[in-house]
């Protein structure tokens, strides 16, 4: 049988990690059967979560997990960008700074001394920021962690030169499609579902929990209206600030809202403001 790869070069894929928990890489690894198909169609040049082999660039597609958290990260992402024709960031850390971006509202020195026995050995930036704050990114795949099906669709789409089929509507679409009862309306639990991008299949509301915003802001969000209503229903500013300032708390829409909640005086409803 003729080796077609001899004449048609397989696209080269590389996976990079920055400040993160590796959960998104595990999602890629978990999609094992499909990953084998993927391996058949692309050359996996670097994926440390799966293999210690590291082939040098350039790469056709780079998947980047994690946020920029150290001075070294700032340098390394520039080099990766130069090496990758397409750069796709995956997960909340890479697309919005992740849960570790909570430190962006605090004082780094206080965190370091509270957490580490020898804080002087830690070399970290004062902020955790998304990859797109540092280099141009071709596509951002949200989620904490990312959905393996969406991840494979993005990889396939880049290879085929088409737009990924990633929804940008709210989590409410997934709740209602599943027949899940709204936790906000039926239980009075402040939920980020109406302002969060779908993709998780409404995992938390299906388990009677509110949405924590893992997939970041949906396509058209109105946080002021939502938090204003939750306040009218009795939720505290502090609770709402914590809710919005979560896994994707540093994404622009969520960041602006938690800052607003913190800065504006209590008890001003949306209606009164309007």
């Amino acid at each position: 049988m003729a080796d077609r790869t001899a004449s048609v070069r397989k696209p080269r894929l590389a996976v990079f990690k920055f400040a993160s928990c590796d959960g998104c890489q595990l999602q890629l690894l978990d999609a094992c059967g499909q990953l084998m198909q993927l391996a058949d169609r692309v050359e996996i040049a670097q994926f440390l979560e799966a293999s210690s082999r590291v082939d040098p660039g350039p790469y056709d597609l780079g998947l980047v997990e994690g946020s920029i958290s150290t001075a070294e990260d700032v340098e390394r992402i520039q080099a990766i960008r130069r090496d990758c024709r397409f750069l796709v960031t995956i997960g909340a850390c890479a697309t919005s700074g992740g849960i570790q971006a909570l430190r962006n509202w605090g004082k780094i020195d206080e965190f370091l001394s509270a957490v580490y026995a020898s804080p002087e050995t830690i070399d970290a930036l004062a902020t955790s920021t998304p990859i797109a704050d540092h280099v141009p990114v071709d596509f951002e795949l949200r989620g904490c962690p990312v959905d393996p099906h969406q991840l494979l669709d993005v990889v396939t789409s880049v290879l085929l030169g088409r737009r990924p089929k990633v929804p940008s509507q709210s989590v409410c679409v997934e709740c209602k499609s599943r027949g899940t009862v709204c936790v906000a309306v039926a239980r009075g639990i402040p939920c980020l579902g109406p302002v969060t991008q779908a993709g998780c299949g409404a995992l938390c509301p299906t388990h009677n929990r509110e949405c924590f915003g893992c997939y970041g802001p949906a396509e058209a969000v109105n946080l002021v209206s939502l938090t204003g209503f939750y306040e009218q229903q009795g939720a505290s500013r502090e609770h709402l600030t914590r809710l919005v300032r979560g896994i994707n708390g540093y994404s622009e829409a969520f960041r602006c809202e938690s800052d607003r909640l913190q800065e504006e005086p209590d008890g001003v409803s949306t209606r009164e403001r309007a």
Partner: protein
Amino acid sequence: MMRAVPREGAEQTLPGGAFPSGVATAPAGDPWRAHAVRIEGIVEEVPGVRSYDLRFLDDAVARDYRFVPGQFNMLHLPGIGEAAISISSDPAEPAQLAHTVRAVGNVTDALARMRVGETLMLRGPFGRPWPIAERTGRDLVLVAGGLGLASQRAAIRQLARHRERYSSVTVLHGAKEPASLLYTSEYEAWKASGLVVRGSVDGLADQGGTVDADAIPAWSGRVGLVTDLLSEVTTLSERTTLLCCGPDPMMTAVADVAMRRGVAADEIFLSLERNMACAVRHCGLCQFGPVFVCQDGPVFSYAAIAPFLRVPHL
């Protein structure tokens, strides 16, 4: 879905009102039912725009298939998606379908990667046609912007064959640049049939903007907006029926010019384009005010939809 349009003289029975109710298209089964077609030929019309000649694999389907100019098919690439595309071929040869497609999305991009001999699925035809059959004796003016000419080519072929039934037939085609004028190789044949055919390019000017002739190299023809071209048409009067297809702002501008010249609002017909998933009034995506573009249109009388055309973001 196959429409129960009679073989001979079908177009004679088609009403031309805003929302004709007389086109009886009793359901012939599953509207989602598609038929396999093979790509027999691909013609690169202009950069990024190709025409696909399609033939049904099933002879029985090919035998029964009929369409009227202005109708569209849903072209379905399994695994990729489906797109509504005007039928651009001659209605006299209904089984030799042609569709002219610009690669602008997932489906049309994937279509652009297909080759002669490959198959796809097709549903159709759908929609209200151009009301040309019952406009005999009148001055017909067809105005197309860009790819809008694709929705008019079937009508042009039919008008060229039956030119003597009409007082005059004028085809105006506007595009941004000479290279994006469609079907230019056919202009001579259309003219030979007695049609007046004029093309115009407007450079990079948006509708209503100014035209920079210097920005358009190597073009000896007309430079200007298609509305300017329309203003020069001598047959524009109360005896005119105008058929227009292009971007919404261009169509309203064309309608304004035509009405100033005495063309009745209900003798101006526009072909609209909207997002669409079913083509049979079930999916709701193509709504435009109170109408469904897929089945109430895509061809509408200007009189019926003018109030809605002027509302932003409707």
